[in-house]
Structure formats: C-alpha cells, structure tokens
C-alpha cells in the first residue's frame, strides 16, 4: 500500500511534482505514463525515499521511506530507467544483493536463465561491461528474485529485443499476484494485458487516473 499525500518536489524554481496525491493498493498494476519530463521518475524516486519533499508526504504501508528506509526497501523491488555503470563484477553484485536484501543467488540465476541471460559465463565480468540489454535482463532477474510486494519498473524494456520483452512480460504476469506493480512506460499496447490501471502525468501533475 503506497500513499502519496499532497506531494510537491521542486528543483530550484522548477516544480517537478505539483501537489500530487494518489494511492496504490495491493493488486494494483499501474501503467504510469506521460511525456518526457512529466515527473514520472521523480514520483518513483520519492516513493523510494531518495528525495526530501518540499511538502506533502509518502507512506509505504504506513512508514516513511526516508526515516524507515530499511523497513520500506525490504519490500520494494526496483529497476531504474538507466542501468548504472556499476564496476562490481556480477558475482560481487549478486553477493551485495544476497547479503543486504536476503535474496538467494540461485534464484537470481534462475530468473536470469528464464530471461535467456547466461550468468555463469559472465560471473567475473564487470557489470558495466555487459551490453545494455544484458544489464537490464540482470536487473530484472534481481527484481524478480527479491520477493517484494511492491515492484517498481522505470521503463525497463528500452534495450530489450522483442523476444526478451515477451519473456519479461510472461515472467511478470506469473509474479504479479497479490502485489503492487508500478510500471513506467511509453508503450501502453505492450503492457495492456499486464495492467489494470493507467495514470497519465503532465507537468508534475496527475491528469488522468483510470481503473478498469
């Protein structure tokens, strides 16, 4: 359960989120859409507790994601818009995640396998040396292996080939039950089957919110 109350976030004089209120419940699968610069990423980062809001608040199951970040993040899986240039090897990255978030490495390998990513051939390779699509596949595998009740994807399919996209949507459909799914996308037709709610943002505001 995510509750956003009158959230405003400014960068200098630019208002990126303008008094946004909404909530996401269990079994909500949301396509979050809107033009470039509408504020989608800013909203997601606020949910993850990365931004100190200018006013308003975010509550995840009643907890503030900044003050109780460990508790909140235990229950969130997240794939960012751009895979970061992490210098750790794949093995080290998986070690980091398995220790910090209690995720089984075997499970990551399992989902990577399902995404047609051969991890064992790349274990000692630096993460940033993988191809763009391979990076995204690994991050997706990690997000699925981390059993969270909130899953947040900020355009995770940009670099995936059509085949990989299908794999991804298939896996996601299997895993979205009893969860809250937030999916930032510019291609509604792709996620149509996956979502039951569409939100449009523009200029830092939610301009439409349809449940169907």
């Amino acid at each position, binding site marked *: 359960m995510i509750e956003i109350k009158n959230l405003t976030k400014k960068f200098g004089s630019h208002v990126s989120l303008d008094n946004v209120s909404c909530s996401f419940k269990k079994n909500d699968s949301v396509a979050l859409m809107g033009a470039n610069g509408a504020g989608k990423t800013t909203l997601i*980062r606020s949910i993850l*507790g*990365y931004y*100190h809001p200018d006013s308003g608040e975010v509550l995840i199951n009643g907890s503030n994601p900044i003050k109780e970040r460990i508790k909140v993040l235990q229950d969130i899986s997240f794939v960012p818009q751009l895979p970061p240039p*992490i*210098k*750790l090897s794949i093995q080290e990255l998986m070690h980091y995640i398995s*220790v*910090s978030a209690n995720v089984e490495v075997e499970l990551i390998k399992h989902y990577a396998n399902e995404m047609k990513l051969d991890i064992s051939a790349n274990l000692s390779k630096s993460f940033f040396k993988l191809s763009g699509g391979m990076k995204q596949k690994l991050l997706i595998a990690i997000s699925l292996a981390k059993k969270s009740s909130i899953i947040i994807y900020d355009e995770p399919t940009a670099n995936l080939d059509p085949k990989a996209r299908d794999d991804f949507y298939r896996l996601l459909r299997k895993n979205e039950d009893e969860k809250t799914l937030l999916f930032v996308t510019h291609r509604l037709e792709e996620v149509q089957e996956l979502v039951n709610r569409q939100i449009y943002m523009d200029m830092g505001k939610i301009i439409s919110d349809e449940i169907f």
Partner: protein
Amino acid sequence: MKNLYLIAYLDLKESIRAKWFLVYSLVFGGLIALFFIAGVTESQVMGFSGLSRLLLMYIQITIVILPIFILITTVRSISGDRDNHILEYMLSFPISLKQYYWGKIIGRFITVYIPVLFAMIIAIVYGAMKGADIPWSIFFLYTGLLFSLSSTFLGIAFFISSFVKSSEVALGIAFFIWIFLLAFIDIALISLMMQQRFNEGFIIFIAMINPMELFRVAAISLFDPELTVMGPVAYYILDLMSQRAFVLLSIGYPLLLGVLFAWFGFMIFKKKDLV
C-alpha cells in the same frame, strides 16, 4: 554490522582492481626501491644512517604526496556515484545510509593505508636481510603518523564528496586544500612572523593546527627530541608539553580532525537528496 563489512569489502575489492590503485602502490613501493638503489641506507646525513634515514626520507616525501593521492582518488567517491546513478540503484536495497557511508570510508581507508604501510614493511624486511639495525620506535611512530595522516585526508575527501555538484569542482577544491596546507601556511606564517604583529606563540599555534605541518615536526621529533631543527619554535612546544605528549598529539589531533570531517560529510549526505 554485516552490511557495513559488506560495503567495505566490496569497495576494497573494487579499488584494488582499479588502475589508480596500481599506480598508487607502485609509487610508494618504487620510492622505497629507489632509496635502496640510490644507497640511502649507506649514506650519512645529520648523524642519521641506515634504515632510520631511509624511513625519515620516506615519510617526508609521503607527507607531501599521500594527501593529494587520497584527495584525488576519493573526493569523487560519493558525488561520482550519485552523478552516474550508481547510488540510485545500490541504495534501493535495504541498507542504511550510515552503513553505506561508513562502509565506504572503511573500505577506502584500508585501500589507501595498506600500500604506504606495506612499503615501509618491505623496507624493514629488506634492510634486515642486508643486516641493518631495525629502528622499531621510528617504525611504530611512522605507522601511527601515516594512519592518522590517511584518516585526516580521507575525512576531508569524503566531506567534500558529500556536497560537491561536479567532479571538476571536487578536484579543484582538493587541489586547493592541498596547496593551501602545503605551501601557503608556511609562507603566510613567515610573513606574519616578519611583521611581528602577533606573538610567536600564536603563530606556532596556527602552524600546529595544520596537520601537514604537525606531521613534519612529529616525523623528525624522534631523531631530534629537542626539536632543534625548528629553532626557537621548539621551546614553545616543549615548554607546553613533553616530547611524548607532543607525539601523541600529532597522532591524535589529525585523527580526530579526519573523523570530524567525515562525520560532517555524513550529516550532509543524510540531509541531501540521494540522486
């Protein structure tokens, strides 16, 4: 705690693979090798010879170059990870900011300290094999001095890293601090002295709050317990405290300074947006 070790361990592994670490280790190891090749241990200057003389030269050079090495390699650690969105991903896992920040510092500390220490150990071992006397007291003093020298500049570097916006600015600030501590204070102090407007005690106080100046004096203090190289300044210092107290101060104060800077950096890191 396990997350603290985790972050430190991974940062250490990542640094050791980095090119700068190789250069860094080669510089300090190379310095020692160069001294042996140049026959520093055989020459005699000011009555010091053998390994003592070698260690003294080593630390005098290290005091100058270690700070800039630490500043340059570390000043972008937090700000760089923020810029290229590594923080955005790594901090999406349930790890506290405290564990992340201090884990990074511990990892980085080990990375910068081990090579300078190791170079000294190599010198001792090699010297011993060639039959030189081992100056243990000097070795232990320098181990302590390098420890606190590393911590001072690591603390300053993380402090800068916590608030700067761009890497260029971070580097600029790092250079400025280094030059300022290295040269400007000396020059400024001499001109203050010449003006004779302030009493000497005050000027010495200013000199001694500069960690680099303090290290320089402390490094020589074992060879020269009366601190004669410092001229009249020595009277003020030794009037104020015993030589032993001075050595403790020269290790304790910079260490404290480093921890304080690092702590301020953490406060800023916690208060600011993470991405």
